[in-house]
Structures are given as structure tokens and as C-alpha cells.
């Protein structure tokens, strides 16, 4: 029974493309927009929390996830696939910590997750993940923002958007982004970018924002202390929204 699915479902087309990955990207591009912006002193990632019905209790739906104390993640695409990756990322971070007693650097965690996503494009009986991820982390090299695609490719970005409105959003960001932007402005810009393609009313309950900011410091015994990733509370989001109104 198992050998019926030992072949890969993701196979090359004559033109050299992996169509399953193209289709996965379509799933991502029909998903809700997510934004990530890297500032000089931190990173902001944000997404819409699009509830299908007003009866949904959106306070329990979590799209921006904390992977370990210095890394957070958001997605565009299929929620269930995302949750699998969040779990794998969290486990990978803790496994690193078991060996080195330190939080993983962002690039290392991104490589792991990208590796997982690539496996699912080559293993038997599985399909690629229908999500693109924005991973924001702060390590000794500073703040880093990465995008990971269903194929497993990843790139570092200064500012980017994924999902439904990504083309317009990236044009918007290209105009507004500059290398010296600080986190406060970055959050402001992220909200404005989301607003561009927003369907419906933007309130503190329909968007989720996560930030990481601070400095890398060293304790007396030499251990390194990294800034912590956290989600903005609804009241903090409300304050930001009041500023753009």
C-alpha cells in the first residue's frame, strides 16, 4: 500500500517547471496579504485577520506566531499548512536550544524551515505547503526579515508583502521605505500598506501585528540576551490606528 505513494507527486514539466509549486503559489496569492518591514532597530510583521463571518470569535485566531523568544512568523495562504510549519519551527528552535543552550540565529531557523518545505516538494505521497512565510528574527547580526516560499526558496528582505495584494503593496513600500526607517515609522507604514488593499473595516480586531525590537546585550556571566518578539495587544493596535485616521 505504501509503495503506491512512494513516487513524488511533484514532478517536472517538459519546460522545467514544477507545476505543483506554481499551483501552491497560486494558493498563496489568493490568500490574505501580509507585510514585513525591517527597521534599523527592529522588524514589524502584520497581516489581516479576515473572518469569514461576523459570528467568528477572532480573538482566538492566531496568525502571527512566536517561534522562539527572538523569532516570529506570519503567513499568506492556507492556515492549516501554516500551523504545521509553526509547530515544526518551534520544535526546531527548541532542538537547537537543547544542543547549544542558545536561541537559534534567524538564518539557521529559516534554513531549517525552508528545508522542510523543500522536502515536501520531493518526497513521496506529499504535496507542497500552500503558504509563503515571513520570518522576522533578531540575533547577534541584527534584525533580519526572510520570506520562504512553497518551493523552499528563501530570501532576506528589507520590506516586502505576500498574498493577494502583494504587487500594489510592494510598489507602495518601494516608495515609502528608506534604510533609516525606525520601528515606530515602520509599524505606521505597515498599517498604511495593509490599508491599501483592505476589504472591510480596519480595526484592532481585524489586523494582527508582531514586532521585535531592542538591542543585543550581554549578562555578567557572558550569556547573550536577545530582544524578544511580541504581538501588539489590541489596545496598542488601536493607538496606532488612531494615528493614521
Amino acid at each position, binding site marked *: 500500500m505504501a509503495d503506491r505513494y512512494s513516487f513524488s507527486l511533484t514532478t517536472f514539466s517538459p519546460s522545467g517547471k514544477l507545476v505543483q509549486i506554481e499551483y501552491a503559489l497560486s494558493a498563496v496569492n489568493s490568500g490574505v496579504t501580509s507585510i514585513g518591514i525591517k527597521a534599523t532597530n527592529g522588524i514589524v510583521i502584520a497581516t489581516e485577520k479576515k473572518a469569514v463571518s461576523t459570528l467568528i470569535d477572532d480573538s482566538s485566531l492566531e496568525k502571527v506566531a512566536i517561534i522562539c523568544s527572538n523569532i516570529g512568523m506570519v503567513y499568506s495562504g492556507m492556515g492549516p499548512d501554516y500551523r504545521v510549519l509553526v509547530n515544526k519551527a518551534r520544535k526546531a528552535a527548541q532542538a537547537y536550544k537543547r*544542543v*547549544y543552550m*542558545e536561541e537559534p540565529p534567524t*538564518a*539557521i531557523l529559516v534554513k531549517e524551515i525552508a528545508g522542510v518545505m523543500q522536502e515536501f516538494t520531493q518526497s513521496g505521497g506529499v504535496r507542497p505547503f500552500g503558504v509563503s512565510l515571513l520570518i522576522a528574527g533578531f540575533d547577534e547580526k541584527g534584525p533580519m526579515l526572510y520570506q520562504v516560499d512553497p518551493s523552499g526558496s528563501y530570501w532576506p528582505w528589507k520590506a516586502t508583502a505576500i498574498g493577494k495584494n502583494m504587487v500594489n503593496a510592494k510598489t507602495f513600500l518601494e516608495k515609502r521605505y528608506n534604510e533609516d526607517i525606525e520601528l515606530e515609522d515602520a509599524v505606521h507604514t505597515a498599517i498604511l500598506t495593509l490599508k491599501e488593499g483592505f476589504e472591510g473595516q480596519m480595526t484592532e480586531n481585524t489586523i494582527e501585528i508582531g514586532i521585535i525590537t531592542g538591542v543585543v546585550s550581554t549578562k555578567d*556571566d*557572558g550569556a547573550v540576551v536577545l530582544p524578544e518578539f511580541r504581538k501588539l495587544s489590541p489596545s496598542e493596535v488601536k493607538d496606532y490606528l488612531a494615528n493614521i485616521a
Partner: protein
Amino acid sequence: MSIMEYNGGAVVAMVGKNCVAIACDKRLGVQAMTISTEFPKTFQATPKTYIGLPGLATDVQTLSEKFRFKVNMYKLKEEREIEPRTLAHLVSSTLYERRFGPWFVEPVIAGLDKENRPFICSTDLIGCINFAKDFVVSGTTSNQLYGMCESLWEPDLEPEDLFETISQSLMNAVDRDCLSGWGAQVTVITPDQVITRTLKSRQD
């Protein structure tokens, strides 16, 4: 007969002023018979960190190679050298993986971190880390080394003085241990350079 005393050996590490030193004997024996006098037990992990591995010689060799592998992979993946503190935890988790069939070594780690702060520690054969501020000892001569270090060590020794102190501690300790000795190797690590010297001691 204890397996940890089959081959014999001694390693000691000390903290000085902006420097660390690590020293080991050079004997390899099979119980009472000495078969080599060129078996140092300290290995370089990074340009500023050394790891000392006294204990069963086959495990000394295997683990020095395992750690070389792990440290090299770390450098390739993370694009930076491993810090001494991180290496200590890596050694600890590697040893604990074999909790119920352990490696018969009790490693000592000495190095300078990226801010050139001194760092030393030792672990037992199953990975319990002892973070020390002054000195750490390991091997068949550990009791004698404790006595020598406790008497001779003082804080903030300059590199030349630290070399003298650690050398005297090691040489006089191994003279009271039939399974260690036959020469010594002392490595002093400072922010600018690393100097390894070989000492001629009593050849018995």
C-alpha cells in the same frame, strides 16, 4: 581496575588577566606500561578556544574528531566561530546523548569569547558542566591537581605568570601520579596570540 584509569592522563585549565591557559600531560599507557610519550590531550576547537580530553584514549581520539566535525559544521552553517560557552553546551549535550553507555572522558574547555573575556569549564563524563571562575582539573591526577591549583592559583595573573603557575601545578601534580606525566604541553591563549610550549618533566 577502572576504565577511566586504563590509559592515564591529566588536564588543567586556569583563568588569568584577559587570558586563559590549558595544560596536559603527554603520556599514553596501558595500565602500568607506558607505550607513548607523545600523546597530548588538548585540541584546538577555534583559534581562541581549546578543549582538553583526558580519559580512555580511544574515546579521546574519537571525541576530538567528533567535536572537530561539529565545530566545523557550526562554522559553515552559522558563518561564525563557536563561542566557548556554546561549545561547552555542545560538549555537554554530546556526552549526555550517551547517558547510559557513556564516553569515558571528562573534558575541559578553555577559551576567550568574542569580547576576549576568559572562559573555562569542565564536564563530567555524562555532560554535567562545572563553570569555574578560577581553575578546572580533570583526569587521573585530578585530586593532586586540586591541591596544587588551590595553593598556587591567584586571580589576575598575567600571561607569563599564568604560564608559570599552571606549569608548576601540572608538573608537581603528575609527579604524584604514576599514570600521568612523561612530558607536558601548556597552551596560553591571549587576545593577540596563542602560544603552546612543551615542557620536559621527570620521565618516569
